[in-house]
């Protein structure tokens, strides 16, 4: 039994409206030629068509990662203090991570509907496990002799956490942040399904036949992801001079 939704996007326009638009006169010249990549078209339309999606995309990522970091970091600090919290939190964030974002968007449908907020909630949930796990592991890897010395010298528990444990856990925490950011940039292309905007929107709108569009939109997303990864890596190296010194 073939479902009516089986038509590929190339045949768009024959099924009802939904969120898929028809080919416009703007895109036709490039699409009709079915060339691999139309440089001229790209140069002409780059800013006008991709500026907004790019900014939307960045907005989605920044908000999701920021909120995800704050929440996951706070949870990790709690679980570091109260060890019994660790298994349930690990399992909980794990579930949120495993559920495909597309499904997550629509699980939220009855509660938050479609739109940017739904996308942000789902993307945030996705980042939680990575950041939480890395923070916990980073804190656990601090040598116990250093903690013993800190306590014995007269640092309070709070001072030990903020002056000793967290700085030493910084590389792990940053690695988690880096992974979360890169992954979120990639996944945020799916936000278009939830009407959340972002670089997935041009792709969904035009369909798979418009290769130039795919390359541009996907390419921008990829570049953003890679640059964010490198930037965060550079920041981490800058913040941990003692690691550079030791690598002698």
């Amino acid at each position, binding site marked *: 039994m073939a479902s*009516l*939704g089986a038509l590929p996007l190339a045949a768009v326009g024959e099924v009802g409206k939904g969120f898929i638009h028809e080919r416009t006169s703007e895109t036709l010249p490039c699409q009709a030629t079915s060339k691999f990549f139309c440089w001229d078209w790209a140069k002409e339309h780059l800013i006008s068509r991709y500026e907004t999606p790019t900014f939307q995309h960045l907005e989605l990522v920044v908000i999701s990662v920021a909120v995800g970091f704050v929440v996951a970091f706070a949870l990790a600090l709690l679980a570091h203090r109260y060890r019994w919290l660790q298994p349930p939190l690990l399992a909980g964030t794990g579930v949120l991570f495993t559920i495909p*974002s597309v499904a997550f968007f*629509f699980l939220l449908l009855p509660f938050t509907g479609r739109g940017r907020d739904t996308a942000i909630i789902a993307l945030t949930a996705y980042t939680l496990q990575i950041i939480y796990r890395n923070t916990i592991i980073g804190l656990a890897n601090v040598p116990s002799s250093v903690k013993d010395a800190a306590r014995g010298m007269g640092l309070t528990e709070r001072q030990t956490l903020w002056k000793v444990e967290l700085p030493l856990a910084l590389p792990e925490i940053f690695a988690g942040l880096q992974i979360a950011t890169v992954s979120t940039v990639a996944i945020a292309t799916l936000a278009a*399904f939830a009407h959340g905007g972002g670089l997935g929107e041009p792709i969904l709108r035009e369909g798979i036949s418009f290769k130039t569009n*795919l390359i541009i939109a*996907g390419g921008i997303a*990829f570049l953003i992801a890679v640059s964010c*990864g490198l930037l965060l890596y550079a920041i981490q190296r800058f913040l941990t001079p003692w690691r550079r010194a030791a690598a002698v």
Partner: protein
Amino acid sequence: MTGPVLSHPVFASIQGAIEFIFTPQTSNVTGGKTVGGIDQVIELALTQLELTALAMAAALIVALPIGLYLGHRGTGELFAIAMGNLGRAIPELALIAFMAALIGVGVLNLTIALAVLGVPPILANSFVGIHQVDRASVDAARGIGMSEFEILRKVEIPLAIPTIFAGIRGAAVAIVATATIAPIAGVLTLGDFIINQNVYGDNGVLAGAILVALLALVIEFSLAGLQRRLTSKGLRLKAT
């Protein structure tokens, strides 16, 4: 007391979704054709599982040997790490659409696209897992006369299971997630309910979301269980 609570729109939606899963409905768009029902659900679910399984198998066959070998030799670290990072940066939607445009639609072609997504995490994590095995254990194994392959099989892999499986599970998550949107490239999976909302209606969308989530969790739990079976007792006792 329960009256007002249960009549909240959320519960109505869930009820509608459950109905959709089990009994065929009339679609308002297609003029009389039926959608939904348990048969369609199973068909689409199986397609998604098939896609996932094929892609995972392909990714494992390609990535695992390379990652294990490089990790054992200790070379190619930059390559493996870069692979892992770049792989994470690939936008799923663009990948599916682009692959479909490039090599055409169909299950086999899509499998290749999904396998591409699965290779980086498996390769990177296998490398790191093997590479980070305590050198002392490896030296001892070599010292008592194990061949290189035996060392890999009997010492390094067992010790690296947690890290390797983290990579496998990461790959599974990415593949399942992308298989969900396979319908835009012509392969019908459970994601069809979600994507083609105009055909299946809001009930269908919610049903699809629930089904996809459940499927993903089932796969994840299976892998977790497999990992636990394969992890030696000594390692399990150590990991808290």
